[in-house]
């Protein structure tokens, strides 16, 4: 008895099994659906000083208030650090020194209401880059 397979019989068996590919595709879909809500949000945590509209809303004691670095951003973009006007090119070294010397390393930013958000965020960012542990936005 011969069990010789003919060329014709071999052809019949050639079926591509797509099941593993389908399994992988479905697993990938499920993985992406589960992972997408975990995408990270970047941002700067901001602390504002209080609820009322005036600047004295900061509820800090006098001694604590003296320990924090006060940054004032004026309408024309001028920056004052603890009441001293600082030129743009000296801002970073002066801010760094002031933060380093401050015991709490906290910065309070007071900006004019007409200043743009980008200007305030830039100051906030510079403070954080130069060692501020907490940045407060004064109202």
């Amino acid at each position, binding site marked *: 008895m011969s069990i010789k397979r003919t060329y014709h019989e071999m*052809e*019949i068996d*050639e*079926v*591509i*099994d*797509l*099941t593993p*590919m*389908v399994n992988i*595709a*479905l697993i990938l*879909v499920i993985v992406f*659906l589960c992972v997408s*809500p*975990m995408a*990270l*949000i*970047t*941002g*700067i*945590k*901001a*602390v*504002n000083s*209080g*609820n009322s*509209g005036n600047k004295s809303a900061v509820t800090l004691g006098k001694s604590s208030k003296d320990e924090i670095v006060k940054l004032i951003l004026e309408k024309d973009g001028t920056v004052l650090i603890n009441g001293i006007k600082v030129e743009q090119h000296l801002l970073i070294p002066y801010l760094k020194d002031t933060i380093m010397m401050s015991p709490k390393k906290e910065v309070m930013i007071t*900006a*004019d*209401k*007409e*200043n*743009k*958000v*980008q*200007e*305030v*965020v*830039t100051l*906030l*960012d510079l403070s*954080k*880059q130069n060692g501020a542990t907490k940045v407060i*936005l004064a*109202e």
Partner: protein
Amino acid sequence: MDNVKINMTPLVDVCMSLLIVFLVSGSLIIQPALKIKVPEAITNEEKEETDKIILYISSDGKYAVDDIIIEFKYLEMMLNKKLLVIDSGMVLIKADQGASHGDLLKVMSIAKKSGATKVTIATKQKE
């Protein structure tokens, strides 16, 4: 040769599943109500809370909560309502680079009054 067949059933299954997934997820995508270009910053804090309220402030002084444009006078009421159903108490403020600082402060103050425990200003990583 005539009997060679590729089983198309699994492929069709995948296509149909993908179609269903995209149809379902498409409706869940929150389209921003206002066009915002967030400020750029080098430092950032990464937050993993998915449960949050997104508050938009445009450069021309318009406000939106998630996907709804809202008048300023209704903002507090809306935030109050939304914060009740959110455990994290997080409010993410997406203010335009050109929005005024005054608007940002007003919104931060309202968020705080409404019971937000975390207020974050969204920034884009500076390159």
